[in-house]
């Protein structure tokens, strides 16, 4: 069959579309509210995610108040404690971390870093944000419906998630499930953009192997998310049907309050499989962007090229691929066949290999670097410590025999907070300190930043380190109170009180960070275009903050990778990616001959 070239589908590289062809909004609303500019959408995503994250932070403070000082606060009772646990967990994992890394950083950084004017489907991108906002509002609404939000735990396990006796078993859980479904739809729209933009809208000379690792991390995380979120979507829909129509996908035959319920034969374990097929990759959906960003922070602020660039890319891919075949390590206690347990323990431990490689590479990048202890660097180093810590306890929990007694104890809570809560959050802070100058044109205040770092870093250790011991003692997670339990010594209570004090300190220092964000916006030191002396394209824009279209009349052409720091013989200690190579004498001869 002959293929005739045709107008609309004649291929024009997105990188060569002229500035004029962009959609140009005229009004304030078009520019900042219904915006199709990826940078504005990125900021919208970030602000929304941070706002909803604050709610989750307050919830964690309330939970800690209860655990540290039981029976002091009368507004906390066993059932709203469960609601707080659930909403805290779900908001933090999905609505804060996922949205901020992919929707926030992804939107802001991908087009700038690959040298594109915008995402490839700006309109879809805009819708993506509004659907996300809608999902957030639905979730927030669930606090106010009759019965309150769901208290099923962020894993939403049936049957209890939809049985009377669990808080929010009617409206709460329905709103949660519907909100998740919308989140996934919105994310899919954004995700298509991120993937296709990286694949197709790179500027001339920007090969995949010249991409900054930040883009690699976000790119792979998006691929994981696109494949894994459908599992959450399917489980949410099936559970909603069980709840609303009375099907029995997940609900077994049950007797509740002496009554046979109308459910029959459904399989809670089926839900667990679906949920964790999403749930484990989700860990890496928030970890891979963090890995990518931290690589760039370390390289920039150590003025050294990243150690083992290609190895880093391959490790990101290996971790992403393997993360699809480890999900059942969350289900060791579900009574699975021992051979399955063995299989999943093995794959889990194998993931440690590429992960460890990355850690070594970060450390080797630091080795004999010209380290600048700027605030982003402090957070990056803090990340390495925390991540190693959480990773090591992960090796323990990955083994069936060790996991069985520790499952559902505070040890698990300590482990996952170290590895997937605090670590990515530290990277997010580092990234905000790093890119805030590009977004606003002003530096964040350094003194406040350093204070924020030290209190947060040491504070989180004060919170989570002792929690491991509580776990060893057998203190269960998701418990409103454990007083009067024989096997838990009195001293556990003092430890709990100490943890709570640390939590309150860490929580309040985040207010200082917010203050810094606002204060610096008006009063911060003007940053100039490239305050850190970085090589990547987002720092080479003609304007700071970059205008719509990012690069002015001409898109940059890329001549080198993103890591030319401290190159011997170069005049500065960094060479921007778009700086043409110097003409050597030899080349001049070539040219004339």
């Amino acid at each position, binding site marked *: 069959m002959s293929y005739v070239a045709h107008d609309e589908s004649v291929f024009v590289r997105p990188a060569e579309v002229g500035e004029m062809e962009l959609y140009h909004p005229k009004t304030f609303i078009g520019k900042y509210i219904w915006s199709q500019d990826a940078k504005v959408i990125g900021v919208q995503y970030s602000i929304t995610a941070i706002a909803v994250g604050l709610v989750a932070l307050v919830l964690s403070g309330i939970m800690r108040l209860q655990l540290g000082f039981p029976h002091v606060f009368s507004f906390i009772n066993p059932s709203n404690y469960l609601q707080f646990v659930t909403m805290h967990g779900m908001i933090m994992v999905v609505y804060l971390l996922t949205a901020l890394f992919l929707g926030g950083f992804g939107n802001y950084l991908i087009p700038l870093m690959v040298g594109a004017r915008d995402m490839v489907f700006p309109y879809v991108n805009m819708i993506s944000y509004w659907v996300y906002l809608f999902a957030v509002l639905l979730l927030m609404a669930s606090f106010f419906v009759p019965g309150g939000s769901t208290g099923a735990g962020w894993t939403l396990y049936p049957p209890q998630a939809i049985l009377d006796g669990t808080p929010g078993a009617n409206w709460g859980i329905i709103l949660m499930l519907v909100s998740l479904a919308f989140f996934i739809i919105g994310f899919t729209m954004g995700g298509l953009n991120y993937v296709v933009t990286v694949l197709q809208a790179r500027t001339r000379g920007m090969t*995949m192997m010249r991409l900054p690792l930040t883009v690699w991390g976000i790119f792979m995380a998006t691929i994981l998310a696109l494949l894994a979120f459908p599992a959450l979507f399917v489980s949410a829909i099936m559970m909603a049907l069980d709840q609303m129509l009375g099907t029995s996908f997940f609900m077994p035959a049950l007797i509740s309050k002496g009554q046979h319920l109308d459910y029959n034969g459904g399989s809670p374990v*089926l839900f667990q499989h679906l949920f964790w097929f999403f749930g484990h990759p989700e860990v890496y959906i928030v970890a891979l962007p963090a890995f990518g960003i931290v690589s760039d922070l370390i390289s920039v602020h150590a003025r050294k090229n990243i150690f083992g660039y290609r190895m880093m890319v391959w490790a990101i891919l290996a971790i992403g691929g393997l993360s699809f075949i480890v999900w059942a390590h969350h289900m060791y206690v579900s009574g699975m066949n021992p051979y399955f347990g063995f299989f999943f323990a093995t794959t889990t431990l194998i993931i440690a290999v590429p992960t460890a490689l990355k850690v070594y590479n970060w450390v080797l990048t630091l080795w004999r670097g010209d380290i600048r202890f700027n605030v982003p660097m402090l957070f990056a180093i803090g990340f390495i410590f925390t991540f190693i810590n959480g990773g090591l306890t992960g090796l323990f929990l990955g083994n069936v025999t060790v996991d069985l007694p520790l499952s559902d104890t505070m040890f698990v809570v300590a482990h996952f907070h170290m590895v997937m809560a605090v670590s990515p959050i530290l990277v997010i802070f580092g990234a905000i300190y790093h890119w805030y100058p590009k977004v606003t044109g002003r530096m964040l205040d350094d003194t406040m930043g350093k204070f924020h770092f030290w209190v947060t870093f040491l504070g989180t250790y004060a919170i989570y380190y002792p929690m491991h011991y509580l776990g060893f003692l057998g203190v269960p997670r998701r418990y409103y109170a454990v007083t009067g339990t024989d096997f838990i010594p009195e001293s556990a209570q003092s430890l709990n009180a100490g943890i709570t004090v640390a939590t309150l300190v860490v929580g309040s220092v985040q207010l200082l960070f917010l203050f810094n964000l606002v204060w610096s916006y008006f009063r911060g030191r003007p940053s100039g275009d490239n305050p850190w002396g970085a090589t990547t394209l987002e720092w080479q824009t003609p304007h700071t903050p970059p205008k719509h279209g990012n690069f002015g009349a001409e898109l940059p052409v890329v001549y080198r990778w993103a890591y030319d720091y401290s190159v011997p013989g170069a005049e500065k200690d960094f060479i921007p990616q778009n700086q043409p190579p110097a003409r050597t004498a030899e080349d001049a001869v070539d040219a004339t001959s």
Partner: protein
Amino acid sequence: MTIILLVVVPIMAAVVWWLLRQTMNVRPWTEQRPGDALPGDGVLSLPPVTIGLGVFLAVATSLFALLISAYNMRMEAADWTTLAVPKGLWVTTGVLVLSSIAMQWTRSAAIRGRIDRVRMGLIAGGVLAFGFLAGQLLVWQQLHASSHFVTSNPANAFFYLLTAVHGLHLLGGLWVWGKTTAKLFRGAAVGRVRLSVELCTVYWHYLLLVWLALFALLLSTPPRQNACTPDAVAICGSPR
């Protein structure tokens, strides 16, 4: 969960293969020498929407594979009574096949620039697709009339769920189809809609394949009758 792994593993393998091609013989740290041509950068000569559709199909495949995985796992339980495949599905399947054929025909007409045929073909394809959806609804109604309710058995619940998800995907396609058709009838030249027509065709074929897979799944489910007798209620749960 085997089915979903059969989808995810090839996708990841494809990514690995693609990345191998990006990394082989590449030294990322070397700079461009003056006069060197800019390196090929692996940007495919395809419009972004085409790639976008490809990525979306991967997502949809993951969704359907997960549903099928769930179906297979849930099938093992004792309360499963296989649903006798309604005869009407043979008819709707036929209609969907015709719809795909019409779209394929439209596509080649669009490539040849035959605007009259494109109009005819698009209408035919769309109407047939709506016909398919109407047929599915009819089958639902018949099932309902014969007391095959969504709650009476997991096999029924899955039947309604699978057909609904598939139908909604087709509705999404019909929305794009509607926009394209409207554009064409407002007098757009063939060139302006050619890409949309091509992508619609790909999507139609994809949904046909998915439907054939789902249909085959329903047909191949071994017939099984719920073993619950009234005495066994305590174990199997209450009959309805």
